[in-house]
Structure formats: C-alpha cells, structure tokens
C-alpha cells in the first residue's frame, strides 16, 4: 500500500505534517523531509508541552554545524506519525532549530529507511510504501 502525502511545492523545503504523541497529549507539527540527516530531529519546546523533558533523554548528542558543535539528546517518544505511518516508541534527537525556519523538526533517515518513497516535487506530493520486514 502506498500512502500519498501532500506538501507545499512553493516552499524552500519539503515540509509535511507530523503528529507527535506523548504522555500529556499530542501535537501536530510541520517537519522537513531531510535525507541528509541520519536522525529525526524535534525541537524541545514541542516535546515539553506533551510531557517530556531532558530527564527522559537516553543519551547526549552533538551536532556539527557551520558555527561549531551544539548539543542535544536522544528521546523515545510514544509515537511519531508521518507520511501516513505511525511508528511507536520512536527515537528522536531533541535539538533546537531557529524560530525563523518555521518548522519544528526534520524527518531523517531513521524514519525514512523503513520505507520506500518517491518524492514528486513538481506535483507537491510524496508516495510512501512500507518495506516488507
């Protein structure tokens, strides 16, 4: 089964809606598809509101950027739903992204590698198919 998810073809990035579920509720956010990122990234403010904190982190991480090395942490969220699929107990890298980008995170390869996907940029949609185990 292929799920079709729509994005705004006029945006600078391929951005889709995603739902993050935690102990205090869920939040629908916008995340960029990023095949250049090994990890899925979510900003801390959003996770704080659904009941997570740095105390729930499982490991510290660092991110090398143009201005140096910045730190975040790994966290297992109850569920991450994106591209028509829900992944339970999914590990994300909690890391700050600047407000001005207008997104709450990146969908990285630790999510995408579980699927085959076809990005149809001009049409503004992405087709995603679960890989057989």
């Amino acid at each position, binding site marked *: 089964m292929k799920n079709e998810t729509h994005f705004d073809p006029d*945006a600078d990035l391929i951005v889709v809606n995603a739902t993050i579920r935690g102990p205090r509720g869920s939040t*629908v956010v916008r995340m960029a598809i990023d095949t250049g990122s090994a990890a899925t990234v979510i900003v801390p403010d959003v996770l704080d509101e659904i009941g997570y904190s740095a105390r729930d982190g499982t490991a510290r*991480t660092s991110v*090398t*950027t143009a201005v140096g090395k910045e730190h975040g942490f790994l966290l297992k969220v109850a569920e991450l739903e994106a591209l028509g699929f829900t992944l339970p107990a999914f590990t994300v890298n909690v890391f700050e992204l600047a407000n001005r980008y207008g997104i709450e995170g990146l969908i990285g390869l630790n999510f995408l590698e579980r699927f085959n996907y076809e990005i149809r940029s001009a049409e503004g949609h992405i087709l995603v198919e679960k890989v057989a185990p």
Partner: protein
Amino acid sequence: MDAAERLAPVITGALTWPQICEQYPDQWVCVVDIQWAEPRMFHFRNARVVGHGTTRREPLVQARPWRDRYPEIGHFFTGKIIAPFPRFFA
C-alpha cells in the same frame, strides 16, 4: 507564571489557513478542532486558534488551558518556511 500564562484563555471561531495567516502574520500559532479536507493534505480546511506569538513557545503556553479539552493541538508557523539548517549528525 509568565505573561502568556496569566492571560485568560481565548479561542477564536473556525478560521481557514489563509485567514489565520492574515490575522497572525509571521507568527507561531496553536490551533485546535482541526478539520482536514482529506487525510495527509498539507493545509487544513479550518481550525480554531488558541495561541499565537512570535516565538514557538508563546502559543504553546497559551494553549495549555485547552489541552484537557483538545488532546491534539496543532502548532504551525504562518510565515514562509525557509532553509537552511544543520545537516550533519555525529
């Protein structure tokens, strides 16, 4: 308790995404009661705004009183989404 938390909770009527962008330009908003035209569409048909501000955090704080009534809250930016961002993880 900061200023955003002291404000009485406010909720708008149902607004379309273009209406929300017009009323809260280049802001972060929290919305509830989201009506999607179809699953996995990028834009929703309409929703009710329960928080807005220039930082990510402001609308999230304003939306707290609504969390019990609306277990799912949308958190979106009304301005243009731009690149770039950090790309390499170690």
